[in-house]
């Protein structure tokens, strides 16, 4: 729940600034990153197995997120939200100096065994598909339509519905 809570707090801080109690959908992780002072790039030279990376170097204020330009927009959105999760976790820990996350897609990584990866994935799901918004729309049986509303892939939407026990 901690990742979900952190994601919601970020939404309140950087996305729902017009005094509304519900987030405008789809949530734009690129705009949120920019508000946090994080530069987001798409890179055509990233290896196919790398979906994205987050890095910050000592002495430089702004961290940067680099996404694989060959990925679909929805995939980039999720990766960007995932990297934001790493950033928020690092910020909470007060990490300084240089650090870097390189996120790969391979059989091991898809299991999401590392605690920081589990956190980042839950954070990304909570950011792009806020719990209450998903619950409010869960009566719609059309997963593809829901996925379109939230700006995520149908697989990510289905997984979120299952996780929230709404499927």
């Amino acid at each position, binding site marked *: 729940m901690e990742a979900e809570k952190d994601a919601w707090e970020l939404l309140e801080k950087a996305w729902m600034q017009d005094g509304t109690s519900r987030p405008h959908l*789809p949530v*734009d992780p*690129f*705009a949120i990153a*920019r508000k946090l002072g994080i*530069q*987001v*790039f*798409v*890179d*055509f*030279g990233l290896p196919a197995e790398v*979906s994205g990376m987050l*890095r*910050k*170097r*000592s002495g*430089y*204020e*702004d*961290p*940067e*997120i*680099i*996404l694989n*330009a060959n990925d679909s927009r929805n*995939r*980039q959105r*999720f*990766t*960007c939200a*995932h990297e934001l999760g*790493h950033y928020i976790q690092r910020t909470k820990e007060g990490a300084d*100096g*240089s*650090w*870097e*996350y*390189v*996120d*790969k*897609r*391979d059989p*091991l*990584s*898809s*299991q*999401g065994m*590392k605690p*920081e*990866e*589990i956190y*980042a*994935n839950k954070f*990304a799901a909570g950011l792009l598909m806020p719990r209450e918004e998903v619950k409010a729309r869960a009566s719609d049986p059309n997963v593809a339509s829901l996925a379109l509303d939230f*700006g995520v*892939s149908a*697989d*990510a939407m289905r*997984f979120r519905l299952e996780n929230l026990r709404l499927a």
Partner: protein
Amino acid sequence: MSDERVSDSSSEELPASAPKPGVDATPPGRELALTDAEIERKSRLVDLENKETAVAKLKTEVDKLAEELATEKDNRSLRYGIAIAALVVMTL
């Protein structure tokens, strides 16, 4: 979830050749990612440009047709005049 991945965090300094955030120019093959709003604006701009091109084409077509119409009117007047003249000559 299909989007999980391995994270490799490191406190080591990155290679000196790596671009420095906010200092170096964006390396080739890398672009600043657009927000949804920017993509929508860009898409609207492209849409507007396409519509402007279509309007310009239609205006050219209209001008061409107007010119043809004017020529046709002139030709008709001329043909009418010749026919009248021919009738007068035949009558005489």
